[in-house]
């Protein structure tokens, strides 16, 4: 069986188990699932009709199978507050969140790769210690605290960028970017710290190898040596941590969108918490977890690009 197919199949049990956990949260918790799904303001009739639809008298796994089928077909349930399908609400809010995550990822990689490589090259020297201190600091600054510091400095003090809000890309690309740059920076910095640390460790490992000494002896230029030989061989741990760290990025999206008032899926989640809209929370958990699993599937598949041995 090919590597790609094998990896694809391996994600299915993980997704199924994630779905089982999410389903069990609601159905095995002490409360009445029908009450939770109907919301606090529901009339007894509404609760009764939801209870009938859930078929709570049926065996657990039968209900789980039914629910899973509807989730696969894109039915994530109804929002209590909006009275609309949860899937529609999430789709509607997807663009700001995706744009924010991608820009944060871009910023993180752009900071972390050079920083980690440089620190490894100058390992043990002052510059390395400074870079790694930055990484520990970046790792400890909560995204929302950093967000407020950035707003205070760049928006309130210098007045360079808008304080918060969001402009859709079709309403002006420049304005779109100006609104997104600070949230992406706040979100990306923690991620950058994580990637920089792993990049440094991976590069140190590679730089100590015999073939790097050979490359240097051959008189290869620094650039060719670092990028063609070292970075390619250090790539597997680096893309791995980018994948693992994506969970952190998703958690960060929820917080960052609240700080900067970005109308994305994170903001939808926070509003759902305040409105006690459990179907929305459940849908968001499913969609974000699926995204995380997919990202890590892509990471696994990318190994084949860097390491031909994996393709077997």
């Amino acid at each position: 069986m090919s590597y790609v197919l094998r990896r694809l199949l391996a994600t299915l049990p993980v997704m199924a188990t994630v779905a089982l956990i999410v389903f069990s949260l609601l159905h095995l918790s002490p409360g009445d699932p029908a009450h939770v799904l109907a919301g606090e303001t529901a009339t007894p009739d509404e609760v009764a009709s939801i209870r009938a639809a859930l078929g709570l008298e049926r065996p657990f796994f039968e209900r789980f199978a039914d629910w899973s089928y509807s989730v696969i077909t894109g039915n994530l349930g109804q929002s209590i507050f909006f009275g609309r399908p949860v899937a529609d609400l999430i789709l509607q809010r997807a663009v700001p969140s995706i744009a924010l995550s991608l820009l944060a990822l871009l910023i993180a990689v752009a900071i972390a790769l050079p920083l980690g490589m440089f620190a490894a090259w100058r390992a043990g020297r002052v510059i390395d210690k400074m870079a790694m201190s930055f990484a520990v600091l970046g790792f400890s600054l909560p995204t929302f605290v950093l967000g407020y510091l950035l707003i205070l400095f760049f928006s309130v003090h210098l007045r360079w960028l808008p304080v918060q809000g969001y402009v859709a890309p079709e309403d002006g690309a420049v304005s779109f970017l100006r609104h997104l740059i600070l949230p992406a920076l706040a979100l990306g910095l923690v991620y950058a710290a994580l990637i920089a640390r792993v990049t440094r460790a991976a590069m140190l490992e590679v730089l100590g190898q015999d073939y790097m000494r050979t490359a240097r002896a051959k008189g290869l230029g620094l650039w060719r040596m670092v990028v063609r030989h070292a970075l390619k061989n250090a790539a597997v741990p680096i893309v791995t941590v980018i994948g693992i760290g994506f969970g952190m990025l998703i958690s960060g999206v929820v917080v960052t969108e609240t700080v900067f008032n970005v109308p994305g899926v994170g903001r939808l989640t926070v509003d759902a918490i305040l409105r006690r809209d459990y179907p929305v929370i459940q849908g968001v958990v499913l969609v974000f977890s699926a995204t995380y699993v997919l990202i890590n599937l892509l990471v696994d598949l990318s190994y084949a690009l860097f390491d031909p041995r994996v393709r077997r």
Partner: protein
Amino acid sequence: MNAPPATAGRVATELTRHPAIWIGGVILLLFIVAAVAAPWLGTIDPQRIRPLTRLRPPDADSWFGSDMIGRDVFSRTVYGARISLVVGITVALLSVAIGLVVGLVAGFVRWFDGVAMRVMDAMMAIPSILLAVALIALTGASLQNVIFAITAAEVPRVARLVRAVVIVLRERPFVEAARVVGTPFVALLWRHVLPNTLAPLLVQGSYILASAVLIEAALSFIGAGTPPAVPSWGNMIAEGRAVFQIAPHIVLFPGIALAITVLAVNLVGDGLRDALDPRLERR
């Protein structure tokens, strides 16, 4: 991994060789002392509302200023350390204890291993804040539920770590030898397995403490954490949100306290990692 026994002298040498441990440790200790001694540190009742001194900037009388309903930000920040540290330390202890049991059983009992690790993989696929949000949405916002929800999100990391250690140990000659001569299982665990999980657990435990403090603050910030009346750092930052541009001190002081606490714990964690794993340090 079989380190020489820890004597006072050896501990002292390690500490001087890894300043991160004691720098972080001292800061953390200061926060713990401040949290315990909160009532005697020049604080007033953190819940006392004084409408006449709303939004007062920091000055000599009220060091951190006051918030939008006149509560003293310094007092609230000091009392907030209690919440953060209680959550962080409890979650770290609970996750290490539960994860240790799950990991040990998974490492020795094959049929349990497959099931438990699939569940742990799936739990790690759910972003930790969202798992906590879902649990709290079902159980209600209280300090216990916050601790429970964050622990649920952290246990898989410990369980996987312990299992990995056990699986390597299981095949090692000294464990096999102990089994062959009929060492009771509990003695085998106690004498040979547990001591070898101690170092990685200590490091992982400190990272979990840092992460739990962060997640608690983030949960409170988005309204899924400690109840609003509780002076936790996340709640304070959430309350100061609306007036951030005119009174940034309400957000900044708890924010800085939070960042310093997490930094201190991470420093201890990094230092312990370097001290306990000499292989990594020399890089």
